[in-house]
């Protein structure tokens, strides 16, 4: 069924009796051409593009819970392509371009809103670094504007400009950045994939791989063995656990990141604002809640919940950036498990095992990457060659010293 304004009116006039489920709930088949593990944004996007752009058939997505129960439904919804390094920037800009056409492409309202992402700077050195980043973005054909303090004041007069320790000196604005309704991304891709014949198998946990003579023949699951010519793993925070079933150790640690939403308020924030003197980022959802977050908790975790010290730290960041936030009450908070890689950048690559492919290491920035990650992983699965924008996301970059370390932190995942 195609969704449209006309359809909404027609259904409204006929008692909403014509809506059907947005995707099927099929029984697993014994054999597929391609199995994608993980019904998060990346897994569903991969299946969607495999079917739509790469003409693949007999595809399944295997999800241990319900689709969208992982990070795709837990993130703070920020999309941007303001990276510095060559290995990253073309990939994230490819993603941004896909976001711009996504809703028409998969016929679903994902509330893609390019309301701008503003990164603030608080010292001359930080402004120099932002100038460099902005120039790198422009060299890659991406929009970037350097604002002085007055320019920031025009956009967001409520910020704490004259803080004695961290005055706001300006900021780097990406006008095309913004936010997207996160669950709708999972639903839109799921519906688009399903309508092209992809089986979405929920409540089906992968518990092992069947590997013979160095070749992956399929996956063991809580609903039995499912054979596949190719298996792609896109399980984000569970990457370490799932790939250990194939005997692999990854350049990844799992960490917990928390997010927070305030009560609904009238519109006060123009776009996404990030604090440069502490780790704090905030935007306002269309329902009015302030959506914000900060650092990961900093220790390995698979618990999907964080601890109070980070809550305090995030709230302190909020108070020092925009004191008016102290008047808002916190409504909800939660945690998600991040696949933190050793250089802060992702991996989309083959493994040493024939027929087994890996997508992960997204750290806390993988939501914005969803469309490009799905496209590039589909490209790899379908053609056995990396997509041109994802050639740097290889496993062997660590061995070869070709790290893509945006923050220059080294092999210390909790600092990326």
């Amino acid at each position, binding site marked *: 069924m195609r969704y449209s304004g006309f359809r909404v009116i027609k259904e409204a006039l006929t008692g909403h009796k014509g809506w059907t489920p947005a995707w099927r709930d099929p029984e697993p088949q014994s054999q597929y051409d391609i199995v994608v593990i993980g019904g998060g944004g990346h897994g569903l996007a991969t299946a969607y593009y495999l079917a739509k752009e790469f003409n693949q058939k007999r595809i399944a997505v295997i999800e241990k819970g319900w689709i969208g129960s992982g990070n795709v439904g837990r993130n703070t919804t920020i999309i941007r392509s303001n990276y510095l390094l060559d290995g990253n920037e073309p990939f994230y800009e490819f993603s941004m371009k896909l976001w711009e056409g996504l809703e028409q492409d998969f016929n679903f309202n994902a509330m893609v809103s390019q309301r701008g992402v503003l990164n603030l700077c608080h010292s001359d050195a930080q402004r120099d670094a932002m100038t460099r980043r902005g120039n790198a973005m422009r060299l890659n054909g991406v929009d970037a504007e350097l604002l002085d303090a007055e320019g920031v004041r025009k956009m967001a007069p409520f910020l704490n400009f004259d803080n004695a320790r961290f005055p706001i000196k300006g900021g780097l604005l990406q006008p095309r950045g913004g936010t997207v309704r996160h669950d709708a991304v999972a639903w839109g891709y799921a519906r688009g994939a399903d309508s092209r014949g992809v089986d979405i198998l929920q409540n089906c946990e992968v518990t092992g791989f069947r590997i013979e003579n160095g070749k992956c023949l399929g996956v063991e699951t809580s609903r039995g063995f499912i054979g596949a010519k190719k298996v792609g793993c896109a399980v984000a925070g569970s990457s370490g656990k799932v790939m250990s079933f194939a005997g692999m150790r990854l350049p990844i640690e799992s960490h917990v990141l928390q997010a927070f939403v305030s009560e609904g308020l009238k519109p006060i924030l123009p776009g996404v604002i990030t604090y440069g003197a502490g780790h704090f980022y905030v935007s306002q959802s269309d329902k009015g809640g302030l959506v914000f977050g900060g650092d990961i908790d900093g220790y*390995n975790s698979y618990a999907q919940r964080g601890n109070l010290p980070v809550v305090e730290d995030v709230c302190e960041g909020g108070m020092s950036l925009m004191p008016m936030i102290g008047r808002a009450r916190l409504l909800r908070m939660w945690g998600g498990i991040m696949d933190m890689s050793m250089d802060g950048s992702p991996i989309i690559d083959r493994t040493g095992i024939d027929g087994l492919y890996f997508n992960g290491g997204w750290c806390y920035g993988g939501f914005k990457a969803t469309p490009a990650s799905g496209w590039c992983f589909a490209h790899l699965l379908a053609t056995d060659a990396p997509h041109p924008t994802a050639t740097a996301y290889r496993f062997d970059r660590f061995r070869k010293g070709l790290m893509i370390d945006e923050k220059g932190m080294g092999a210390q995942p909790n600092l990326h």
Partner: protein
Amino acid sequence: MIINHPLLGPRDSQEFTYLGDAGLIERPDWQAEDAADAFYEYLYLRDNPAGLHKELWYHEQGDRSWLVVTRNISSHEIISVELARDVARQKGRSK
């Protein structure tokens, strides 16, 4: 989380900084034939288990000792805490 420091008793985890997998104590021999491979694995690859995890915490805001904490990382429950010094000595290191 409360870390039960072997010398100082229960301390708030906020007083510590976190380094990661306690396997980092076992630095490879840089003169070995396979040193390049060993250092690649040492530096970059992790078991990252969804259960018990031995990890290094540094008491930065306290007595500056390194601890090996055994923690269930699926529940955050701390099982045991040892001085990293003792753990390293058990492995035959001088300090």
